[in-house]
Every structure is written in C-alpha cells, then in structure tokens.
C-alpha cells in the first residue's frame, strides 16, 4: 500500500465511525456542538497517532505474549497526557468533554489500530495510519456535531445561522437525536459509496 492509500483507507474506506462503527459511545454523547466535536476529534487523533508511533517503534522490543498489556499502558499514558494538557490549557473544552477524555483509553479504534496495524508496520506507515484514522474520526465528528448544533440550536460554533424564528429541534441535541442523525448519516455514506462502486464496476 502506498502512503496515500493508507491515509485514504482510514479517512474514507474504513472510516472508524461511518464504516467500522467503533467507539460510538463518546461519538453519540459529546457531538452536541461543533466545538465539542472538533475537540474530541483532535484529542482522539493525538492519542491514536501517538500510540501508533510508539507501538510501531517498539514492536520488535515488545514480546508477543505481553503485547496487549504493553499497548494498554502506552495508550493510557497518551490519554493521560492529553487529559492533563487539556485540563491545563483548554479548560472550557475539557469541562464540556468531561469524562469522555479519560475514556479515550477504552476507545476501541485505538487498540484496534495498535493491534491490526501499528504492531505489524513501520513507524512512518503507522503514523500515517494514525493520522488517517484520526482524520476520519474527526470528519465524522464534525459532520455529526454540525448537523446536531444547527438543528438543535440554530447556531454553528456559537454563531446564529438560522433566523430567530427557527424553532430549535431540541431532540437533535438530546441522546435520541444522536442515534437517529448518526443512523441517517451512515445511511447516506453507504448510499454514496454503493453508487461509487456501481460506477466503477
């Protein structure tokens, strides 16, 4: 696989949320506004890329029998780093994301990439894989959180874009709205990717 393919694989073909559908818990919970979505997306990308780099660099040093605990330590360390940095420097965002920052540690996508990719590939490829998967995660977060903020609040990044007369659709920023809108989004992506495949064939 060349470098661009690795990136595209994570960004579109195997998008962690829209295609693989892993790590949904935080996705559904915090995408009530675009700021939160971007913050969470960036935090996950940082942990994912960081742990991919370290794990791929250490892949020959870590014996097979203890690779999972070793991966977990590395992922937990990166999550704690992000947690501390956000607590110190982006406090408002940290408060909005709350418990979902420490919970990045159990986000399946990160351990999955460590196991499926970083433990078998070189540092450069693993970095690109981490960035690609992270970008894919971020893209899905941005799409879902923009839709939810616009429908549920009539604003985007806090700026009003729908007229005052618009009656906010409260459900969209509440949990049921998250499920429904994410479902519709995944449906739309499936529909588009099928059309694309049909064209190719």
């Amino acid at each position, binding site marked *: 696989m060349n470098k661009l393919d690795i990136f595209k694989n994570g960004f579109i073909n195997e998008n962690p949320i829209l295609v693989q559908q892993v790590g949904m818990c935080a996705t559904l919970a915090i995408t009530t506004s675009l700021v939160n979505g971007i913050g969470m997306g960036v935090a996950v990308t940082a942990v994912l890329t960081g742990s991919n780099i370290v794990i791929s660099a*250490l892949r020959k*040093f*870590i*014996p097979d*029998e*203890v690779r999972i*605990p*070793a991966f977990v*330590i*590395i992922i*937990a*360390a990166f999550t*704690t*780093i992000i947690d*501390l*940095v956000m*607590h*110190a*420097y982006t*406090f408002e965002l*940290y*408060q909005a994301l709350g418990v979902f920052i420490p919970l990045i540690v159990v986000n399946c996508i990160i351990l999955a990439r460590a196991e499926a990719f970083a433990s078998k590939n070189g540092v450069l490829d693993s970095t690109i894989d981490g960035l690609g998967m992270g970008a894919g995660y971020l893209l899905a977060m941005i799409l879902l959180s923009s839709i939810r903020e616009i429908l549920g609040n009539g604003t985007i990044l806090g700026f009003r874009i729908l007229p005052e007369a618009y009656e906010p659709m409260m459900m969209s920023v509440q949990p049921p709205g998250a499920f429904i809108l994410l479902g519709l989004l995944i449906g739309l992506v499936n529909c588009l990717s099928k059309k694309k495949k049909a064209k190719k064939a």
Partner: protein
Amino acid sequence: MKNSYVKLGGVLFIIAAIAAGILAWLNDSTKDLIAKNDAMASMDPQVLEAVMPGSVMFNEYEDPALVKSIKSENEKFVNLLTAVDASDNELGYVVRTWSTVAGYDGDMELFIGFSPEGKVTGVSVITSSETEGLGSRTTEPEFTSQFAGKDASAEIVDFEAVSGATKSSNSFLSAVNNAINIYNQYLK
C-alpha cells in the same frame, strides 16, 4: 521457562516505568495551571454570593510574600484572596483554609469572607467528605448562613450545630476560626 517470565515482566516494567516517568514530569509541569483552572471553576456565582455578596471574582492577594509567610506559620491555610465586584472595587478579603479539627471523615476546606469592618460576610464549603445527608448538611446554606454578619474580632464560640452531626459542625467551625485568627493576626 522461568527466564521468559522474567523477561516478559521486565519488558512490561520498563514500559510502565518510562510511561510513569513522563507522566510524573507532565503532571508536575501542569499542576499549577490545573489548580488555577479548578479554582476558577469552583468560583460559581452561588459560592461568590454566599461568601461575599456582590462579588464577581476572587483575585490573588496583592502581596504574595504575606501569603507565603502565613502558609509557613499556619499549615491549614491555603490561600488569601481579594473579593472584587463587577467594577473591580475591593469588597474584602477571603481566606481559604482547611479545618484544624477533623470532621467525621477528614478535614473540610472552606472559603471565609471578611468585610473591611471586621465582620464575617459569609462562608462556603469547597471540599468536604462528610456523610451524605447528615454531616453534609454543614455545606448547606441553612447552616452556613448563620455565620454571615458575625463579629470577627475573636473566635466564634456560639453557633447552631447541625443536630446529629456535631463532629462535622465542629470541624466546620474550626476552619472558620482558623480564618478569623489569620484575619486578626495578619490583615488588621
């Protein structure tokens, strides 16, 4: 066989030790900022209003040397702050301190406000691990509001303890009195 276990454990140990080292360093370099952020966040309007009516923010006291010297002489003392209103006028001092007498489950941490006339303006609990529903009633306004307006020239003796939670109430009072002593010794 035995050797391989040692090796496996050793590798995990090295990884964990390095991770712990990095985190210890990062924790050390961010802890001041984090403490400041948490302090700002604990400034919810209700606390401000309870401790010093009309205040919008508690700022650090203008003379860090005094704060340092109080800290070295009074180990329960946490910080000295200046309460300001929306147009930045000083309304009085706020002492942040732990209790000197332990409650039912450890010390309590309080804000105690003082007016320029030498009266307690209000008290609010920051940290407390007293029993939920019993000792925890010392954190509620029904109990804490009795201290507002009390004379701060000497330690408070008379007060209404929460019934059934004397130990928590006494712990609370010890923090208030510690603040009063600090106020009389350093700020008058």
